[in-house]
């Protein structure tokens, strides 16, 4: 990231607009790198730098069409004529407390906690906004129909960037609905793992105690030869 500041256009720079200001930056940089390159100090809008934490949602346009597109700024390379901005330092959102411990029927409870879920009007704006390529709209319908397993699978790669939230005309927070479905599926509907439960019981009954006692009294050499055995 120690590329000299390119104020003039050369063969390897591209012209971009960052929050309305024009800059020339080397090609191949991501949006966030372009911001650093042009002197922006960043604390909000940056997290993992690996496309997985959802801290860097951004909006941008390119010269070929009027569409305002969405992206994760750490994962998107700048191109000639691009105009972009990090979307929001913070998305205001309603805080819903879902107490799974007290819940009896999560498939009903969803309509109390997230009543909007039933109001999807199929505009598909959420799906188009998703930078992870999730079929968000179908996921929301799965939630409404109680098909939590399929819905949970659809939201597997959701990074909670919230880009789907402000575009929803029915005020649904699809990412929150997706997360709720995933947790409910995990807590209420997934099978128990017999291997795991068996191991827990073995540990509880002290099955390994004697082995531990013997092992912890051994010298390094004896432990190495044991682990090679």
């Amino acid at each position, binding site marked *: *990231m*120690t590329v*000299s*500041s390119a104020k003039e256009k050369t063969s390897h720079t591209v012209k971009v607009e960052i929050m309305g200001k024009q800059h020339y930056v080397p090609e*191949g940089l*991501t949006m966030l*790198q372009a911001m*650093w390159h*042009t*002197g*922006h*100090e960043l*604390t*909000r809008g*940056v*997290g*993992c*730098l*690996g*496309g*997985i*934490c959802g*801290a860097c949602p951004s909006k941008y346009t390119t010269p070929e069409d009027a569409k305002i597109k969405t992206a994760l700024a750490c*994962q*998107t390379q700048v191109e000639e004529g691009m105009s972009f901005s990090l979307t929001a330092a913070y998305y205001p959102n309603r805080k819903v407390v*879902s*107490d*799974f411990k007290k819940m009896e029927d999560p498939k009903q409870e969803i309509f109390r906690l997230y009543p909007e879920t039933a109001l999807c009007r199929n505009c598909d704006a959420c799906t188009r906004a998703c930078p*992870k*390529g999730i079929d968000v709209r179908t996921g929301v319908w799965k939630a409404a129909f109680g098909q939590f397993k399929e819905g949970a699978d659809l939201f*597997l*790669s959701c*990074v*909670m960037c919230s880009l789907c939230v402000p575009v929803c005309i029915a005020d649904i927070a699809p990412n929150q609905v997706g*997360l709720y479905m*995933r*947790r409910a*599926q*995990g*807590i209420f509907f*997934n*099978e*128990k*793992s*017999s*291997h*795991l439960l068996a*191991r*827990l019981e073995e*540990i509880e009954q002290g099955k*390994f105690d004697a*082995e*531990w006692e013997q*092992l*912890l009294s051994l010298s*390094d050499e004896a*432990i*190495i030869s*044991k*682990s090679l055995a």
Partner: protein
Amino acid sequence: MNAFELSKQAVIDGREARKKGEMPRLSEDEKKALLSRYHPDLKEEAYTTIRIGVNKGQKTVHEVVRLLEGESPLAENPPDLTPKHQVDVLVIGGGGAGASAALMAQSAGSKVLMSTKLRLGDSNTVMAEGGMQVAISPEDSPVRHFLDTLKGGQMANDRTLLKTLVSEGPANAKWLMDLGVMFDREEDGNLSIRSGGGSSLPRLLRCKDYTGLELMRVLKDAVLNEDIEILEFSPVIEFLTDGNGTCTGAVLKDLDTDKRIVVQAKTVILATGGIGRLHIQGFPTSNHYGATGDGLVLSYRAGAELKFQDTFQYHPTGSIFPEAMAGLLVTEAIRSVGAQLLNVKGERFVYELETRDAVASAVIRECEEGRGVETPAGRKGVWLDMPLVDVLHGEGTLADHFPNMLRQFSRYDIDITKAPVLIYPTLHYQNGGVKIDVEGESTLKNLFVAGEASGGIHGRNRLMGNSLLDIVVYGRRAGVAAAKRASALGFCPLTLKHLEDFKTQKKAAGVVSETVSPILFPDYVNKG
């Protein structure tokens, strides 16, 4: 075709013939020789002696020493120490360890405040791909997990800590699942397990290649659902002590307003993670933006002892091309299902599932001895041939098991089901950290440390999948222990006396420093 393309073609052309080839494992002696020659941890000129503090006389890398010996941001104008918050337990860090600790402390009845540098969840935890080691299969046992880990850690691991880690693994996997974490399953409903480097049996629980995202998403939601106050964008910049070896609170910096926030806490849990963004020895890193070793700096200055502060994990397979992806991790799990490493001639040069230190050293050897491939930006690396996974296990395997990886590269028009990618070791993990006991307490009283910031559990080299386990097991233990301690305590005085002690020591040792630490963020901003 240029050299780069020619070499790539050689890898593609040789794939079929390599498919069944065996690669001999390194003998203990070969491994030792390889490490001593090429491992970055053994590069003498990268190291220097710590001149002050508890670990005085010991060594670590220049980048860390510079921060350990740095000035406190409060040295010049100490704030008024009237507390703005008074809590039972202050949790510092919003990754997996911090979230687990906060949940346990809160459920034990403590009033909990969490400070995070970025948002809750923006961390190394969310980035974990490969999985979490837990010995659950009937063939496996905690003892075996212990032996593998000890061997991987060069026999240096604290054995009490390690025994607890492996023994409590199954219970902690269950705790996560009870919160809603979904690990991959086999057809029969049992948890699916995969092999990892240095492990004698498959033992990795995972959620495709989104294991960390799955864990963090659930833990974050669980924290948000509890009565836990969270101060985001408010990192700790200095500890407060009673002036007598006990931690009594901390000073935070609100990054939005630049204001100082004083917190008085009966007990403190530090879970600030690792050091990747210090770019030790110039390595790229797989870590998140906030991984700047703050935990080491803060604890050390307040008087806590460090353990294995001289050893770091360079993950063998960090992407180096395209440049925008430099440092980004390609999970080891891809090698455990058959992806091979190849030099410029398209030849294998190491058994791919040796421990990370050995594989990384072998990659560095290839590059230093002229068998590396150069990228257009001038980085050197070797090929990781991922399409082989589909050849071995059937088309669609990569897409099914590694959707994240597929997507990451596809953004740059690289199809990992067809072409190999270029990799080089990336700075990944701090093997050591603040020394803790089995309850997670450091040598500074009432300061508990959990997760990557702590040291001892993993010895001198952490095995894949043991860190996710560590952050949950020890995050929770610290939460429980800190809450218990707090319940029997009142508030203690808030002072910055440890800064005076530090200053005296510096003067005596002739240390002059122009660095203010913790640095909080790497400096990527172009000042030109």
